[in-house]
């Protein structure tokens, strides 16, 4: 679970701290982006500009990197991101039914966030937990061997 999202110039300060922490490291861009995503729940343009300046690279390169990766978001996300694996080992074990139930319970489609800001629902490619397919991740936690009637119980664990 990420930290409570700071606001306004608190964002700028947090990003500055992260930049400081990784300054001078070879290949600092990815660790910086990971930390910003973890701290804020997304990577605002403001953060990208600051990182670009600190690393002396074009802002476009930072943006192009952020948009490449599944785990980085350019928009605010819910408190918890639910990632439903749709790769073959989970598909074969009933992932579609799990996703359908999540859509039903949350009232959102993949890519959307619930109106209370609690959950963002996403598809993901294989998360390497195929021994207990179908599996999902809620934040950092993995839930597996899922059937639709277990979904309510899983969601209830997250306030």
């Amino acid at each position, binding site marked *: 679970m990420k930290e409570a999202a700071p606001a306004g110039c608190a964002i700028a300060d947090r990003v500055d701290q992260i930049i400081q922490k990784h300054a001078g490291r*070879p*290949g*600092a*861009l*990815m*660790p910086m*982006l*990971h930390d910003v995503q973890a701290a804020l729940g997304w990577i605002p343009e403001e953060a990208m500009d600051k990182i670009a300046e600190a*690393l002396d*690279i074009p802002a476009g*390169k930072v943006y*192009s*990197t952020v948009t*490449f*990766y*599944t*785990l*980085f978001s350019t928009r605010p996300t819910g408190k918890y991101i639910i*990632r439903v694996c*749709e*790769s*073959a*080992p989970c*598909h*074969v*074990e009933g992932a579609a039914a799990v996703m359908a139930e999540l859509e039903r319970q949350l009232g959102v489609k993949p890519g959307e966030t619930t109106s209370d800001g609690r959950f963002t629902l996403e598809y*993901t*490619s*294989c*998360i*390497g*937990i*195929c*021994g*207990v*397919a179908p599996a999902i*991740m809620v934040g*950092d936690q*993995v*839930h*597996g*061997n899922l059937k639709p009637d277990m979904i309510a119980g899983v969601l209830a664990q997250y306030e």
Partner: protein
Amino acid sequence: MEFVRAHVLVCHGTNCSLKGPAAIVRAFGDQLREHGLEGEVRVVETGCFGLCEQGPTVVIYPEGTLYTRVKPEDVAEIVTSHLLKGRPVERLMYREPVPQQPVQAFPEAQHFRKQTRVVLRNCGVIDPDSIEEYIARGGYAQLGKALTQMKPEEVVAVVRDSGLRGRGGAGFPTGLKWGFAAKAKGDTKYVVCNADEGEPGTFKDRLILEGDPHAVLEAMAICGYAIGSHMGYIYIRGEYTQSIERLGHAIEAARNIGLLGSNILGTGFDFDVEIRMGAGAYVCGEETALFESLEGGRGEPRLKPPYPTDAGLFGQPTVINNVETLANIPPILEHGAEWYRGLGTAKTPGTKVFTLCGDVVNRGLIEVPMGMTLREVLYDIGGGIPGGRTFKLAQTGGTSGGCIVDAQLDVPMDYDNLAAVGTALGSGALLIMDDTHCIVDIAKSFAKFFLHESCGKCAPCREGTKRLYDIVDGFSKGTGKMEDFALLERLARVMYKAPFCALGQTAPLPVMTTLQHFREEYEAHVRDKTCPAGVCSALVSDKKGA
């Protein structure tokens, strides 16, 4: 030193962690205290035993009793009946799938008897957070031997003579790779562990790192010594939270006692390791895309040559090896190249860690010598197909591998034999599918994966994966035409050759092999607009409406 009369090993691999082994460990703690046994029985949190679908698993020594699907509520009975009275709890014991007999000691279970656990030697045996236990089982002794008794070229020679081939999927001879890097010019060289494990159906690297992280660290240091590198990076996918944590602890523990860092074992050899996280991109498992990502940017592959051993990470000579490849290094140094060649097949010595998923009873992790057939793995170790259903097809090597049917189940599995029947050993993922599935629906999920994961750099893959998906999607929706089959074959021919990297080049393989084996089922979707398996919703409801 404290002697205990019994050990309780509780699996903490991620698959078992889903059902809260922490609660089981706590329950054991409470119950042992209540019965005054805490001085006599030790509870250990270990890595993966391999019976992932039947977790949480607990093994009690000295008997080796294997309990599966253990709940915290069961612990009281295990303590009073098994630990106090010496009567194992039969209802919790692992049962052979056929016949349904409880197994008294886990090494006797067919599932384990047929395995040769080299890479997994410590998984499910030691506490992975304990460097002392790793050392007690011979850990870091091979690093010590290499640094104090062997020359770098001798280390390379042992690895080369062992015949070890890369276990990430490509099967390139590891010793050859190390030799190239050792000879490359340059003062700064790198060792990279590829722990990006994105191939669907594959979860071995995750569990090797969770169960025995020090094995990989020791191997990286040995590689560093062999090629002249002082810095290693482990690029691990960002989703692998537990593995990342375990590795972090392991690196710190190794540094604290001087097995990583400066002047290792007082030999003057420096080697350190840093963890770098991926951020959700399958293509970053491709070695040059991984370098691009680590250096800071989109994970788009580079042109080869130059190969990583000449110009890799940060443009420097680099050895990049898969987790499983590295985990083989300490045993090879310990027992020798000839011992390793005695396992497996002539062209692919050693063992392979396979991950069984899909419609198979014992879903999870196993390790067997190269050359075992899929029939033997599926039925003798995997326990066969659940629910008495019939085997339809298996995909080997992950989503980028091909599909085989019953007639090919007797192929001895290694890189060359599986390639000869049109599929791949790949990462060792084995996806088993029974007769309830629709082949078009499955092919669609294969195609969707590549569509999503294409990095976009080259047109044949960026456009080709989209068209591949669209055609198969059309089949599933009843909008396909018979001419699409010729189009599909032409598209596949182009994609096998034109894309910039292996992602695009293998994308058509799973679809085309299903077409090869199940042509009639595909044609039913197109010509007759029916889905014989009753899965494709557009075709099933059409029929119902008619």
